[in-house]
């Protein structure tokens, strides 16, 4: 490996593993995480999302199978499944629904006050809430893996798709990590869950499509190219073809860290308005 790659690897470890380990070593963080996860899992809305996501995954999977059966194309099944419009259109509704209540509800009811006046650190509260949403997001995707496993079991020779499958789920996980942090931020900003949800949805969607939107706008080329480079759509294409690009890894993880840092400062905001 080159030196720059070592630096990248070190960066990734620094911004992800260290906070995670720091969090896991702390009891109060785990207690809040458990409570948050419980309140997600006990609420009916969580199971509505799970079933809707399963339904949509089922649709795009079946549709992809149909395409492959009728046409003789070189693309893999994963590519078709993860590039269907219905999949991506609904995909961005998941984040606001999971994250909107995280802080907005506590701000509204006032429980944020009892929570933060207990002997806990704000950073633990933030990480606990963030990780709880991330865990639920991961749970959400487990059923969809089953589709591919079943197919893989029935036709063993289709093994070259493993790379593409891994790439696809890596980008789904990365997007989850990134977009959930945006959800945390918008939820911490407001008392109103609806505002939080709308803001989160807009940001995620904008980030996803920014490259395309700018194609038709009269902006300097430098902007267009720069923003096209951060636009999620392009990353997805690279990943579902089985290439795990470290640049994107660093991009998403470091931005997540930045956004969580912003969220932390918003939670502490009341401490510095004076």
């Amino acid at each position, binding site marked *: 490996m080159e030196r720059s790659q070592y630096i990248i690897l070190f960066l990734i470890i620094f911004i992800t593993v260290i906070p995670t380990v720091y969090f896991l070593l702390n009891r109060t963080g785990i207690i*809040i995480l458990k409570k948050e996860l419980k309140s997600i899992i006990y609420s009916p809305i969580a199971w509505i999302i799970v079933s809707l996501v399963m339904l949509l995954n089922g649709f795009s999977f079946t549709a992809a199978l149909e395409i492959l059966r009728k046409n003789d194309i070189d693309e893999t099944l994963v590519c078709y499944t993860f590039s269907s419009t219905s999949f991506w259109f609904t995909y961005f509704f998941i984040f606001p629904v999971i994250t909107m209540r995280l802080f907005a509800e506590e701000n509204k*009811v006032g429980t944020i006050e009892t929570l933060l*006046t207990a002997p806990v650190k704000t950073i633990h509260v933030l990480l606990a809430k963030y990780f709880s949403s991330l865990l639920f997001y991961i749970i959400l995707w487990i059923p969809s893996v089953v589709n591919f496993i079943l197919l893989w079991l029935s036709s063993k020779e289709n093994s070259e798709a493993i790379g593409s499958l891994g790439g696809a789920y890596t980008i789904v996980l990365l997007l989850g990590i990134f977009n959930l942090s945006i959800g945390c931020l918008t939820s911490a900003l407001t008392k109103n869950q609806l505002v939080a949800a709308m803001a989160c949805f807009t940001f995620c969607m904008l980030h996803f499509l920014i490259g395309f939107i700018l194609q038709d706008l009269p902006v300097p080329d430098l902007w267009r190219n720069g923003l096209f480079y951060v636009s999620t759509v392009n990353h997805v294409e690279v990943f579902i073809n089985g290439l795990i690009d470290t640049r994107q890894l660093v991009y998403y993880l470091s931005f997540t860290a930045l956004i969580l840092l912003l969220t932390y400062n918003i939670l502490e905001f009341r401490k510095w*308005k*004076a």
Partner: protein
Amino acid sequence: MIKVSNLSKKYVGKPAVDNISFNVESGEIVGFLGPNGAGKTTTIRMLTGYIPPTSGTALIGGYDIFQDSINAKQKIGYMPENVPLYDDMRVREYLLFRAELKGLRGQDVRKHMNEALELCSIKDIKGQMISSLSKGFRQRVGLADALINKPPLLILDEPTNGLDPSQIRSFRELIKELAENHTILISTHILNEVELTCDRVLIINKGKMIGNNTPLELSEKIKSSTTINLELKSQDQDIRDTILNISGIKKVTLEKEENGWKFIRIRIDYGNDLREEIMNLGKKRNWLIREIHYQRSNLEDAYIEMIQNKHK
């Protein structure tokens, strides 16, 4: 237990709490009294470490709430105004969560929860959803949460707000019971409550500390003046002046007039009961008197007087 020195909080340059200092000793029940918007909640939020002060310090059980907040927070059981609770949890579940959050482990969690349930007499509702509880029970759940890890200090912000009279009474009894093992700071704008439960009253108005007394001292303080209320019927135009002529009378005001009846308020020195003189005067002038009432001063007068004086 609490040691506050020169605590100030400014919002956008406007002082919400202005340079207050006070101490609360272990075992005391202290009432924190003031009209709405006086800065009670701001002060309490600073004491519990929710917001930092612009200047000044607060020590809780020897720990600075801002420098050493985790240790200081361990010592506080705090019940905020309006008792925020998670509506989607059951009472038992909520208290277990709070107990663990406050650092209890293993066997202690359940033991402490049961004791808190017992103390606040909410054993019967421990399986209920918090969203289905009445205001009185919510208050008790909030209190159970505040005392679950047996902190030496309880800080209750307007604990009887929104309760009905019988609930207020039982809540008051509960607080008296708790006072045996806890130092308690209660904020309120209801005087009656302070008079009945507290050892000491801190009065705050417009962010400034204007009183630090026992309830008794406080009522003594304004005993320097008392009022007599008088209702009479007469055609005389010089009633005010004639009453003022009696020696010892400080001020006479005609409050209102209704169907010929005049309502008069007379200020006198404390202990100088001039009712007889006034009655004699009335007899002489042929006034028709239907009521004369010597108003004993109470905490309420003291309080209102103090606040209004500071306004001027």
